[in-house]
């Protein structure tokens, strides 16, 4: 048997049920791995060994009692923006201070009910605003493949933890690419489900109409198991869609022969990175060998995705983040004279530069005199982007493109040039704008040995198509099996 931390969730589930190991042993193995690597990776904001071992012991009792669910006893890392009852939830920010939510996020409740073991909270860009996990108040996370590099963001901790085998699987959230980008940069598999498929209740909001929780794992089999657990209607989230979901593991072995993938010309015309171009070409060959047809298609408003996103997301954020005012919870400045001063100082101290930038940008876009020119205009462009996708899916089962225009970049390379940082999300943002499901899978490596991710995009609630295509690709390739030398 390989080392426990080397195994995927589906492999661990098998040895747990057969009694070859226990959840406590698995959890100890992961905790040891965390101990060894955290100094160089910094994937976690908080690790909770004691409660993790308690949960593992409870999982072992469930298994012994024959009450095991498919993921019972599997250790998981949770992005630091999902509320865990009575546990510090900071959203990568100083402003939340020692905030301990008195409630569990719906997804956390689901994990707990299934007997999963929560290892701790994964590092992230402050309030999920960033593409590099450098804006965290707790310091940057490093890419396990090359610790000089960023892991991608904002769910950089979640992706790095899985890549470094400091967690078996993890949860991230994705507003403009925040699951898919770090998954691609860290060489792991991640999906942003359809908007409305996974409850947002208990997810600390960045941009409510774009945010969506999703899983990150080492292969698509684990992704399917987690989707089974996460997808489902939640009456506490008004944007949660009531519908039935298939068993996502049922399509893992399903043939993809005769399916059609669309190639958006607007994406490919932007590619100027040789490594990425080569990886995409190789992947196309692999898919063609599997019997898949490719069609060129056009998404004419794609070029406006970033501009529209950086109006809509900051607008919503400026309102969502207004509640951090030092009155009910979180940080409060020590020096102030009067209430307005208390607000201004508290927020100036509590938020980092990127968050402040986006608050100001969003406030500007919503303010009197600019609302129509910015917010409404962007919301209309959003309609056009969504319509482009609807039309595109008339001629294909899914859309195929890279996840990012380049592999991971260096820490601090783009931190002072927000506009350059924003362009990292050019391939992922349109998917959030339309609320579509998007999967990032490992597609190869750059000449420098950095992972390169592929992206598959499906129509609303067609996650099973993404699972089916990704599983077929992973049967034919071994990029997802490669692990960084640590």
């Amino acid at each position, binding site marked *: 048997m390989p080392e426990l931390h080397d195994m995927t969730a589906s492999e661990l589930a098998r040895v747990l049920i057969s009694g070859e190991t226990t959840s406590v042993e698995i959890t100890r193995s992961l905790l040891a791995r965390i101990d060894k690597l955290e100094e160089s990776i910094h994937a976690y904001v908080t690790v909770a060994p004691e409660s993790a071992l308690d949960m593992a012991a409870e999982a072992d009792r469930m298994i012994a009692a024959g009450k095991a669910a498919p993921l019972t006893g599997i250790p998981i890392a949770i992005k630091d923006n999902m509320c865990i009852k009575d546990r510090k939830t900071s959203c990568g920010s100083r402003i939340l*201070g020692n905030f301990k939510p008195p409630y569990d996020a719906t997804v956390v409740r689901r994990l707990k009910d299934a007997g999963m073991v929560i290892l701790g909270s994964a590092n992230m860009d402050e309030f999920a605003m960033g593409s590099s996990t450098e804006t965290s108040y707790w310091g940057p996370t490093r890419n396990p493949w090359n610790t000089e590099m960023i892991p991608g963001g904002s769910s950089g901790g979640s992706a790095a933890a899985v890549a470094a085998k400091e967690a078996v699987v993890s949860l991230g959230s994705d507003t403009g690419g925040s699951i898919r980008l770090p998954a691609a940069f860290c060489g792991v598999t991640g999906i942003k489900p359809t908007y409305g498929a996974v409850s947002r209740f208990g997810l600390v909001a960045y941009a409510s109409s774009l945010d969506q929780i999703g899983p990150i794992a080492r292969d698509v089999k684990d992704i399917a198991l987690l989707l089974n657990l996460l997808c489902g209607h939640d009456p506490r989230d008004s944007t949660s869609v009531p519908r039935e979901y298939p068993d996502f593991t049922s399509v893992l072995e399903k043939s993809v022969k005769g399916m059609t993938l669309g190639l958006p010309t607007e994406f490919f015309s932007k590619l100027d990175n040789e490594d990425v171009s080569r990886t995409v070409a190789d992947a196309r060959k692999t898919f063609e060998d599997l019997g898949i047809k490719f069609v060129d298609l056009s998404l004419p408003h794609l070029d406006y995705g970033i501009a529209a996103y950086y109006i809509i997301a900051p607008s919503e954020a400026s309102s969502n983040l207004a509640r951090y005012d030092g009155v009910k919870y*979180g940080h409060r400045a020590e020096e102030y004279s009067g209430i307005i*001063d208390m607000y201004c*100082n508290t927020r*100036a101290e509590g938020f980092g*530069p990127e968050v402040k930038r986006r608050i100001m940008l969003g406030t500007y876009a919503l303010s009197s005199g600019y609302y129509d020119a910015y917010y409404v*205009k962007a919301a*209309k462009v959003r309609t056009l982007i969504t319509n482009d996708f609807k039309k595109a899916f008339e001629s294909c089962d899914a859309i195929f493109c890279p996840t990012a225009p380049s592999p991971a970049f260096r820490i601090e390379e783009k931190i002072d040039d927000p506009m350059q940082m924003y362009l990292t999300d050019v391939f992922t943002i349109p998917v959030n704008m339309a609320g579509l499901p998007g999967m990032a899978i490992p597609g190869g490596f750059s000449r420098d040995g950095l992972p390169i991710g592929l992206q598959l995009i499906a129509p609303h609630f067609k996650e099973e198509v993404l699972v089916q295509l990704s599983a077929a690709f992973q049967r034919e390739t071994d990029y997802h099996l490669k692990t960084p030398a640590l």
Partner: protein
Amino acid sequence: MKITPEEVDYVALLGRLNIGPEEKKKYQAQLDDILKYMDMLAEVDTDNVEPMAGPVELHTPLREDLVLPSLSIEDALANAPAKIGSSFKVPKVIE
């Protein structure tokens, strides 16, 4: 210039952010950069296009009018940076 120093002050106050003069210069330059990029949206013909507030094409669900227990007073105030009795405490607000 897409955004003036006065507008930076205005949005900083609306967003309740105390920013220093050096920071202000930096933010102004960066916001200006970003807003210039946004100019491309003007090219898009959006006549007769409905704005989209979110991706879900359903209507808001309705909850039955049922009362559930509230937080205990301890839990309600557990995270308060400053409290007095069973209230949150803030600097005096003058109307």
